[in-house]
Each structure stands twice: as C-alpha cells, then as structure tokens.
C-alpha cells in the first residue's frame, strides 16, 4: 500500500505548499489535513532521526510504527498500564536494595574469603587514585538508576489519576538527560568477566552473588521498551494554581 498524500496549505502563504504524508502505518487514510494551523500539535509526530512529519494514529496492541524514511522506531504501543508500570518500578526498587546490600561476587582463597559490594567497589576505586572511575561507577550504577526509579515511582503514582506530580516538568526533563547514563546491565557482564579473570590470576573459588543485578537488568530491559514521553500524554497539567 502506497502512502496517500494530501495537500497541506501553508498558513504563512509565502512558501509553496507542501505535502503531508499520510503514513499508512501511522495515519488513518482519507483524513486530510486542510491547514497546519488547525491541526493540534499532539496529532503530529516528527521522526527525531530524520525530521519527517507524520500524522499520529492510535496504535493497537503490539504495533510498532517505523519511519518510512529512515526505519527508526517512531512510537510503540505501550502494553503496560500505568498501574502495571508502577508495580514494576516498586519491584525494581526492592531488587535495587538487594543488589546494593548483598555482595556482587565472593572470592575464596585458602580459607580466606573476600567479597565486594557496589559501594565497596566505589570506595576502593576512590582510595586507589582512580577517582574518575569511582565517580563514574557511583553515577551510572547507583545515583542515576536510583533517581530514575524514585522519580518514575513518583510520576506514575500521580499519573494513576491522570494528574501531573509536583515537579513533573523538571523531573521529565532530568529523566530525558540521564536516560543514556544508567549502566547496570554492563555491570552484570563485568561481574562475569571479573570472576573469570580472578580465576585466571589467583586460582580462587568464586561465588557470584549478582542475581539481584540480573533481575534488575531484566526489569531495566522491560522499561527500555517504554517511551517515557507517553507520560506527557496520559497526564494533564493542573490549571489551578
């Protein structure tokens, strides 16, 4: 099916009229756009990778809208309700506490045991003149994931009633910027490599305690498929001051 095209008059009138694509994956056909000025901004969607404009359409279960131009994912159907997401965030918080309390790996050598927790690792790196690494680990493995979970919990709690939590805008902007800087899943793989290396160099017995982290990684993966921008759409700003 070829994309149907509709003329869209330019409201400024200075430029020649352009066309708005009715992407069959995005827009119901037969619904032309008469004038850009009358189209509410929420009805449009712009591919953030190539700047192509689409008309938004409600997606059905499991549907993923791809950009016709660059194949990037435009929008996915979010199968999780706000309540389900809130439950997941709370689970993630419990697991996060576990992951921080229990040792990640325990090594044994001639009856001696030595284990490392996340904070033990961060403090060690600080004391060993590798403060840069220490700060990186603290930020990407502790503070950012923690902030992400806490603020998501906060936002979702209010979103259950379709409301915007106090500080909604500021939190959403912060979440956007820290998004790429959480690295728990890399840490899980790092722990596996560390175990193997410890065996090579020191002939030790290793006991991985990273199960909590493995679960956390799974939860993070589920969250990664959710576009948090939907929180802008499911909530309405409170006009009362």
């Amino acid at each position, binding site marked *: 099916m070829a994309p149907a095209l509709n003329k*869209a008059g*330019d409201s400024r009138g200075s*430029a020649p009229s352009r*066309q*708005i*694509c009715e992407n069959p994956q995005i827009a119901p056909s037969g619904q032309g756009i008469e004038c*850009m000025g009358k189209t509410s*901004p*929420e009805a*449009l969607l*712009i591919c*953030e*990778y*190539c*700047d*192509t*404009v689409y008309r938004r359409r409600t997606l059905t279960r499991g549907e993923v809208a791809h950009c*016709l*131009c*660059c*194949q990037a994912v435009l929008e996915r159907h979010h199968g999780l309700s706000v309540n389900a997401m809130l439950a997941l965030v709370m689970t993630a918080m419990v697991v996060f506490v576990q992951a921080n309390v229990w040792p*990640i*790996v325990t*090594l044994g050598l*001639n009856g001696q045991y*030595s284990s*490392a927790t996340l904070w*033990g*690792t961060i403090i*060690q*790196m600080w004391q*060993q*003149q*590798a403060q*840069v*690494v*220490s700060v*990186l*680990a603290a930020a*990407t493995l502790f503070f950012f994931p923690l902030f992400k979970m806490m603020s998501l919990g906060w936002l979702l709690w209010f979103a259950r009633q379709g409301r915007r939590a106090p500080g909604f805008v500021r939190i*959403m*902007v912060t979440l956007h910027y820290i998004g*790429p*800087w959480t*690295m728990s899943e*890399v*840490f899980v*793989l*790092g*722990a*596996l*490599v*560390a175990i*193997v*290396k410890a065996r*090579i*160099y*020191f002939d030790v017995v290793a006991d991985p305690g990273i199960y909590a982290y493995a679960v956390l990684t799974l939860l993070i993966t589920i969250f990664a498929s959710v576009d948090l*921008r939907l929180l*802008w759409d499911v909530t309405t700003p409170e006009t009362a001051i």
Partner: protein
Amino acid sequence: MSALPRAADLGLISCHVCGLVCRAAADDAGRDGEVACPRCGSVLHRRKPASYARTWALLIAAFLMYIPANVLPIMRTASLNDIDDNTILSGVVELWVKGSPDLAVIVFTASIVVPMLKFLVMAVLLISSRFRSNWALPQRAKLFRLVELIGYWSMLDVFVVALLTALVRFNLLSLVEPLPGVIFFGLTVVLTMLASMSFDPRLIWDGRDTND
C-alpha cells in the same frame, strides 16, 4: 521517498526533550534558540546547536584519550611471586589463552571494536553530512542508531578493573590495583557517548535533493 514532508520545510520543530511538535518561531530569518517549548520549557532548535563543531571536538578529545587508554596499563595484578601490568589488549589475550575464548571475544568487542567503530562511524557521518552527500542514506542512519545503542557497553573493562580491585585483597601478595590507563579509558567512553549525543542525525538527511 522524496515526497515525505520534513518538519524543517513545514515550519515545524519537534522538541528535543519531550517530542512535542511546535510551530517554528515566527522569524523567517531561520534563527532559533530563542523560543522555549510550551510543554517542557526546553529551548527549541531545528537542529542541535553547533552539532558539527561540538561533535568533532568531543570525538577528537575522545580519540586523544583513547591513545593512552590503550598504551598505558589499566590494571596491576600482584600474586605470590610476580607482578603483572595489563593493558586492554593483553587482558583480552590472557582471557583468550587461559580462560574462556568466548568472554575474550566479548571483551575485545566492547573495549576495542566498539570504540574503533564509533570513531570511524562518527567521522564518516560528520564528513559525509557536511558535504551533503546522498550516498547510502538509510545505511548511514542505521549506523548512527547502532553506534548510539552499543556505545556504553565499552564501559565493561572499567567495571571489571573496579570489581577486581575491590575483590582481590587477600594479603599483600595477591591484590589488584587500577592503573592510569583505566581512567583514560573511562573518559574515552564518556566522551564518545557525549559525541554521539551532540550529533544531530537529521543532518544526514539534510543534503537530500530538495527540488521535489
């Protein structure tokens, strides 16, 4: 597919932060950076500001960090009767020879292939977009998304060194210490991530023939 309308041509801007579609600022001079998104308050830009300059600067800085990261040892292992300084590459070789080759492949990919690929892809994207090349547009777009997706896995070796340092402290004779290489490597990863974030993938498409 040249008929697909683009936001820049329609006088629309999508907010970088929240994705809201906004009407471009009224000035026809094409200036931006003065209007804030009505929904989240971020400053609206048609393209990320100074994308070429920033990305080049960060990429070159990352490359300068990458040289000492590879030349200098990243970790010292001291056991009963020998002291051994490891670079990134020698660590991979050791894993391959003594441990598990599959993990060696993973570490090699994360620490060497991914950063190299990132330098190469970003440089190619910057140059080809600057010359408004029409060459392999969908492939270049895909490459950018790949690089963006896998970039942070390079942090793997940094975490391995950190964990081993914290773990192996049995007595004075068996311990692990971080060496300066690991700091440079951590900085390389951060800088390459910042570089790919400051690159605007829409620039790839901006050279496309506009006389449709």
